[in-house]
């Protein structure tokens, strides 16, 4: 039993790491632009399928690199044309717009690549278990965790030490002041949106290697990311990080004790957090409330 719990905690962290990658992109956009990006799952799917299409030409590694960039470019174009006019209007509108985009992405993917699921093959050496004892630690899953760790660390360094990063963080806290200091807020939001969508695209490639590709895969991954943000506290990227890992472990542990509740448990976790600490674990007082 102890071994089972140890296994499931480790396993939960691996799953949680994936939620983190997706949720952090979502969180970046929410914090600076006040947009709940419902189409985030759609971008994830596009990222995955682009990698699938590119793999025959560029190989796995090439696709892994190229696809998130292409997804980010698509994201920037959409931000420029559709979302930018909505800044400053009631958040209702950007929410509905991305909600509609999510439909269009799912159906567009089905139209272009077909309803039939596609396998996305990863290099053979990663597709194996590393040890017979810890059989659930495959090369690919560890690679995924490493990718998440590197990406998130890089992101935090960028936010801390580059000028744009510092401005993004400042804008999250008080956009008016940042704007008054003469910072180009539109450009900042575009950049930030692009980074968020890049992360969605990367999540898509990684998820594709783990699960294969289906047009509907984005919607299912969106909700855990939402919960990660709410549990961690809106406005805090560290919170999102912790929130993502936490719900991964929580659903892993529940799978041992009460398997059929393993998805519902993340909602229970959220409800408990909201009751005890309404602003989330790392949320700032007054932030967006």
């Amino acid at each position, binding site marked *: 039993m102890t071994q089972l719990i140890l296994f499931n905690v480790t396993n939960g962290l691996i799953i949680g790491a994936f939620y983190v990658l997706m949720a952090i992109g979502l969180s970046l956009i*929410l914090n600076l632009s*006040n*947009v*709940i990006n*419902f189409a985030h799952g759609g971008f994830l799917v596009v990222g995955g399928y682009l990698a699938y299409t590119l793999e025959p030409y560029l190989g796995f590694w090439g696709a892994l690199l190229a696809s998130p960039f292409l997804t980010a470019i698509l994201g920037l174009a959409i931000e420029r044309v*559709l979302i930018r*006019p*909505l800044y400053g*209007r*009631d*958040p*209702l*509108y*950007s*929410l*509905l*717009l991305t*909600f*509609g*985009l*999510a*439909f*269009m*992405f*799912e*159906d*567009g993917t*089905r*139209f272009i690549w077909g309803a039939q699921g596609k396998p996305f093959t990863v290099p053979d050496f990663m597709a194996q278990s590393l040890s017979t004892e810890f059989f659930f630690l495959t090369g690919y899953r560890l690679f995924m965790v490493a990718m998440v760790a590197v990406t998130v660390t890089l992101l935090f360094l960028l936010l801390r030490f580059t000028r744009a990063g510092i401005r993004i963080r400042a804008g999250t806290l008080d956009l008016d002041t940042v704007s008054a200091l003469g910072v180009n807020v539109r450009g900042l939001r575009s950049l930030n949106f692009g980074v968020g969508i890049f992360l969605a695209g990367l999540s898509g490639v990684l998820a594709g290697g783990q699960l294969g590709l289906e047009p509907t895969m984005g*919607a299912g991954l969106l*909700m855990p990311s*939402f*919960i990660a*943000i*709410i549990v961690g506290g*809106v406005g805090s990227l560290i919170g999102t990080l912790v929130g993502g890992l936490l719900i991964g472990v929580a659903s892993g542990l529940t799978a041992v004790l009460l398997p*059929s*509740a393993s*998805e*519902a448990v993340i*909602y*229970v976790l*959220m*409800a408990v957090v*909201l*009751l005890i600490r*309404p602003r989330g674990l790392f949320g700032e007082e007054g932030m*967006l*409330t």
Partner: protein
Amino acid sequence: MTAAVDKAAPVAANRERARSLAMLAAIWGVLALAPFWMPYLGGYTALGTRVLVLGLGAMAVNFLLGFTGVLSFGHAAWFGLGAYGCGLFLKFIAHSTPLSIVAGTLLGGVMGAILGALIVRRRGVYFAMVTIAFGQVFYYIAFQWSSLTGGDDGLRGFQRAPLDLGFTTVDILYNSTAFYYFVLICFAAAAAVMGFILRSPFGRTMLAIRENERRARFLGIPIELHIWIVFTLSCFFMAFAGSLYALVNNFADPLGLHYSQSGNFVIMAVLGGMRKFWGPLLGAAVFVVLQDYVSSLTVNWQFFIGLLFVVVVLFFPRGLLGFFQQRVQS
């Protein structure tokens, strides 16, 4: 000066009143005669019933969104709870249509009231997110509690009972026209209550909160209490619509609680015009008919529904009614 105004005002007011009475008569006329004119336009009675029920749902969402300025993106939960409450009552407790509606409305409304108390201090996108997430809690409960709700397969095995009016019974199960009128009467009752509240002083405090929360607070309006009351009322209306929906299909399923369904209700309200009382009904009619029509033409109908969202947001943010009104004025 005052006298002049007092004289001028009634004329303008009378004209205004006459216009809105004519409008009301037109709306109710169209609704009351729907089973007779719809077949000629390729409609069918069940479609009309669906428009009424979803329209009522959209009006309930709009009661909160359009008139109080609070965006709930998880309202399908109360709709779905109403449906399950109604269905479970018919299946396990008693074979009575009116009582089952009461049961469904109470279930959704009371749960909404409890949840509302937890989240009423949140605002804006955060409120929207929290309502989505809590809505999904109920989705998962309906989804997982298979022994009671039938899980993903939905709740079946109940049928609407004939209406016993004392002197006669009305068959609303097999006679779809009779059922349409039954739904229309329920719809009218709910709409009347909604309109009554909106015209009351309380209704005007809702507008005050929507327009300027800080001003409203310093007029002495207890904002949180009022938002909670409106939220709760809205949940009751939603659950009422949900109960009717269960009767429409003789069925309830988890998808009725899903956040995508909430999104549909919100877009119906926005599409029709969320500042207008009848906007959401118009929005629901357009949305339901469009969906019904396009999904028969192409498998890729979802793409076009998504496109509809985008077009409404970019070009008709004030909805169809708001758009027409602007055209008329200019």
